[in-house]
């Protein structure tokens, strides 16, 4: 049979109908799973041209290095008067515990051997690791615990008459893009902190700023704009092909202490090869997390400290700033260096600690910098050989490094194996000396820092994960075949206590009963002796867990509602504000929901009144979605519980099909919600203020508008303007001040 070309074309196109429909539609699941992944640090552009130019660059760099190195030796290493860098942070009053748990390596060779020998070795055997060098391991288990006062008050942030950041732990401040100090507001209005990646040379690059806004009642004045811009330097080349080096500084977040304004700055550098009208980029992976310190009175720059590695997070406790970075050893940089005001200091080998109790994988150092912000600024650095860290939880006594590994396989014996997620928590004591404690392992992932809490010496951790059990068959060819997969989801609440050897041991747990079949934990919140956990697959049980006796944690009641809460905030100790998603009976999300739960009776928790919802319209051509960034970043929520209010920004975006084209429209609004317990439906919207938004916003997800308050005055800051209000049983006397 012959077939004409036209017929064949038609049949080939129609054959698409034979494709069987997909069974999965799980964008949310993929996104959640991806959260634990470390992103690749290097973007290597591969092409022959690149290597040619790169080798030319290398020669130039080598020449430059020779010059710099020879001049550095002659350079006076005099430090600025009030910035003191302690080379080698051990010494002083080392407790025996500190020495036993955190061992300084004696030579660069032993460090190198350790770092290159095992990378990503995930076999952690009961919390200890088979070290490459046995002699180091022998110094591990002696010594008794010095002080057992591990108790810290881990109380959720409430409010006073001046705005404070919504932090997880009282007295432990977290960096944010807006801070209030007296009558001054400091604000970084970055609409999209990463927008420079999409910057192409035909657009005008606009610098970013830290705004210093002085308030006086409703009036707002721009006292100063601290500018951050970019530099472009011609590196080498000719008319045909040339390389430019770009350096961008972008302020990321800030703190205020008594004396200083502290700004964390990211510096991105890349080389751009311009050739025949096209340009390609190679990003520089040598990263520093820069801390700029300004005087809080006159906003003059006091010092700039470039800490090594990629920043994970920071905290400010009184006048101590802790900077926690992931440092990866590239190109034999076994010894990190930091740059203070342009002068490079190589750290001392004795600051790099190997801790037998911290587990495997030495390709990363977790770098912890303690910067004390008194009249003299002192810098101390500590590097711990650890796996790479996803997140941290910090109390006044310790920094807990959190690592959710992804999956690990366990041998269950009898030709059965189990593959499930595991997480590590690595506590680093910061009270006096900085030293590592012992590793804590849980099965499952710790999805955010609110899932871990320390109270009165007990470390409580909520985790969720999935496990695949399967059987293993050895074929005749010696190969292993896996079959009989059974997967299930599990949710654990595990409680650890410090024993007298200074190790965290599992004390009690809840391993059954949290969540029905297939449900995963979506949010957890600890408030002293109460823990509320939300699990979800199709409905949302909210569980109340009584922790008055840590030896016996009990689920005392559960409440089933639709949707699920992602962020919980305690209100007046008897209530919980839940912000999350609404969903239908099949578990598909329908939009966002804000609800109030009454947990005063631990045996019978219930929702109070109606929830406030923002529901999507999923019409395929003209759809409407909402986006609330604050639920994934609780610092964005303004907590004003003295006035029974809280607020955050909500974005709505629509796709409209018009003239055979899709157009996207965005609108940002700032909402303030009020709770009035005297009403049947206590939740209401007190303010919904539309914000001016940037039209070039395909890649922006929020406008990052925030509201803060000083006494009776409220200030809504956004990229374009500051809107101020007087609050007296309602927002009134709106006044706008442009920021440009």
């Amino acid at each position, binding site marked *: 049979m012959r077939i004409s070309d036209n017929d064949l074309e038609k049949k080939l196109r129609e054959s698409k109908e*034979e494709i069987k429909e997909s069974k999965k539609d799980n964008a949310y699941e993929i996104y959640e799973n991806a959260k634990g992944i470390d992103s690749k640090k290097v973007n290597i552009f591969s092409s022959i041209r690149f290597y040619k130019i790169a080798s030319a660059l290398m020669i130039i760099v080598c020449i430059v290095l020779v010059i710099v190195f020879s001049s550095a030796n002659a350079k006076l290493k005099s430090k600025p008067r009030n910035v003191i860098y302690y080379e080698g942070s051990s010494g002083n009053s080392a407790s025996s515990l500190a020495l036993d748990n955190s061992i300084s390596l004696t030579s660069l060779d032993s460090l190198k051997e350790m770092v290159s020998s095992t990378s990503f070795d995930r076999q952690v055997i009961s919390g200890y690791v088979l070290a490459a060098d046995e002699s180091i391991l022998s110094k591990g288990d002696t010594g008794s615990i010095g002080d057992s006062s591990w108790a810290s008050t881990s109380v959720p942030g409430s409010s006073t008459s001046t705005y404070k950041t919504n932090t997880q732990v009282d007295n432990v401040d977290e960096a944010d893009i807006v801070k209030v100090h007296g009558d001054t507001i400091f604000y970084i209005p970055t609409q999209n902190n990463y927008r420079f990646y999409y910057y192409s040379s035909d657009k005008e690059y606009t610098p970013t700023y830290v705004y210093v806004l002085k308030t006086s009642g409703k009036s707002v004045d721009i006292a100063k704009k601290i500018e951050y811009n970019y530099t472009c330097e011609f590196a080498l080349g000719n008319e045909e092909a040339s390389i430019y080096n770009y350096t961008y500084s972008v302020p990321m977040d800030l703190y205020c202490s008594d004396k200083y304004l502290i700004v964390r700055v990211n510096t991105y550098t890349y080389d751009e090869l311009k050739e025949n009208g096209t340009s390609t980029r190679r990003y520089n992976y040598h990263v520093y997390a820069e801390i700029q310190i300004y005087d809080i009175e006159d906003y003059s720059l006091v010092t700039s400290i470039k800490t090594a590695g990629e920043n994970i997070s920071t905290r400010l406790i009184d006048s101590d700033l802790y900077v926690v970075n992931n440092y990866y050893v590239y190109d034999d940089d076994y010894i990190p260096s930091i740059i203070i005001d342009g002068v490079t200091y190589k750290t001392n080998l004795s600051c790099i600690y190997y801790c037998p109790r911290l587990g495997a994988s030495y390709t990363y150092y977790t770098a912890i910098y303690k910067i004390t912000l008194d009249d003299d600024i002192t810098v101390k650095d500590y590097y711990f050989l650890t796996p790479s860290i996803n997140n941290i939880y910090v109390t006044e006594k310790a920094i807990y490094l959190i690592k959710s590994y992804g999956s690990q396989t366990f041998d269950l014996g009898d030709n059965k194996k189990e593959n499930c997620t595991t997480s590590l928590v690595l506590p680093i004591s910061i009270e006096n000396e900085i030293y590592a404690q012992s590793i804590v392992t849980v099965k499952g992932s710790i999805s955010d820092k609110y899932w871990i809490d320390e109270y009165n010496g007990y470390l409580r951790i909520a985790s969720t994960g999935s496990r695949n059990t399967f059987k293993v068959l050895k074929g005749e060819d010696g190969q292993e075949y896996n079959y009989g997969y059974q997967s299930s989801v599990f949710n654990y609440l595990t409680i650890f206590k410090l024993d007298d050897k200074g190790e965290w041991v599992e004390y009690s747990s809840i391993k059954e009963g949290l969540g029905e079949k297939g449900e995963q934990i979506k949010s957890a919140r600890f408030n002293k002796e109460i823990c509320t956990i939300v699990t979800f697959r199709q409905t949302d049980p909210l569980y109340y867990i009584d922790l008055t006796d840590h030896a016996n944690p009990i689920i005392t009641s559960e409440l089933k509602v639709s949707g699920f809460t992602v962020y919980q905030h305690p209100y007046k100790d008897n209530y919980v504000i839940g912000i999350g998603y609404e969903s239908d009976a099949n578990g598909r999300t329908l939009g966002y929901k804000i609800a109030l739960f009454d947990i005063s009776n631990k045996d019978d928790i219930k929702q109070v009144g109606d929830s406030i919802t923002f529901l999507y319209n999923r019409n395929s051509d003209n759809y409407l*979605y909402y986006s609330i960034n604050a639920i994934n970043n609780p610092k964005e929520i303004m907590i004003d519980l003295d006035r029974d209010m809280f607020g955050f920004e909500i974005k709505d975006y629509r796709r409209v099909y018009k003239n055979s084209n899709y157009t996207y429209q965005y609108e940002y609004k700032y909402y303030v919600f009020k709770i009035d317990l005297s009403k049947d439906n206590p939740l209401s919207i007190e303010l919904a203020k539309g914000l001016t938004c940037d039209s070039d916003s395909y890649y922006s997800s929020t406008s990052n508008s925030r509201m803060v308050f000083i006494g009776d005055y409220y200030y809504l800051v956004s990229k374009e303007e500051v809107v101020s209000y007087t609050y007296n049983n309602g927002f009134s006397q709106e006044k706008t001040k442009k920021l440009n």
Partner: protein
Amino acid sequence: MRRITEEEFSKKYDLYKPMLYNIAYSYLKNTSDADDIVQDTFMKYLSTDKNFDTLDSEKYFLIRVCINISINLLKSKWKKDVVKDDSITDVIYTSHDSSNIDYFSLICSLPLKYKSVMVLYYWEDFSVEEVAKALNISTSSVKKRLERGRNMIKDKIESMEDSYEN
């Protein structure tokens, strides 16, 4: 992880998933493998910081990743599975009526090089230029492969009929 919010990612997922699923399906010919490949493709997308100058280059990246993962999975299956891969010759036709010919299987059974251009051109309605950009080959290669793919299919149809008639 890539710096993208869940809502933005969800938009991209809705946009690209059908196409990636179809590509994966053409290689693995079953829904669960195709679903897994789609998932792996998006995971790879989320776990790399790679920057895309245009939306198109993002799309082509996803396509290439998807094809690579599909081919890798296919190869590992060939090693483990005892079952022969179903090629065109295994399909039995009982009638010479062209409407009963399984064009879908014919495309799926093409050698990998031709399959990817056929799938993008016929199922996803890519132009020749777009296929070239997506697979990083020249437009003349695309045209040649399309022609050869079509000819292979034509030959198969004609030879089937001839053998039937004989």
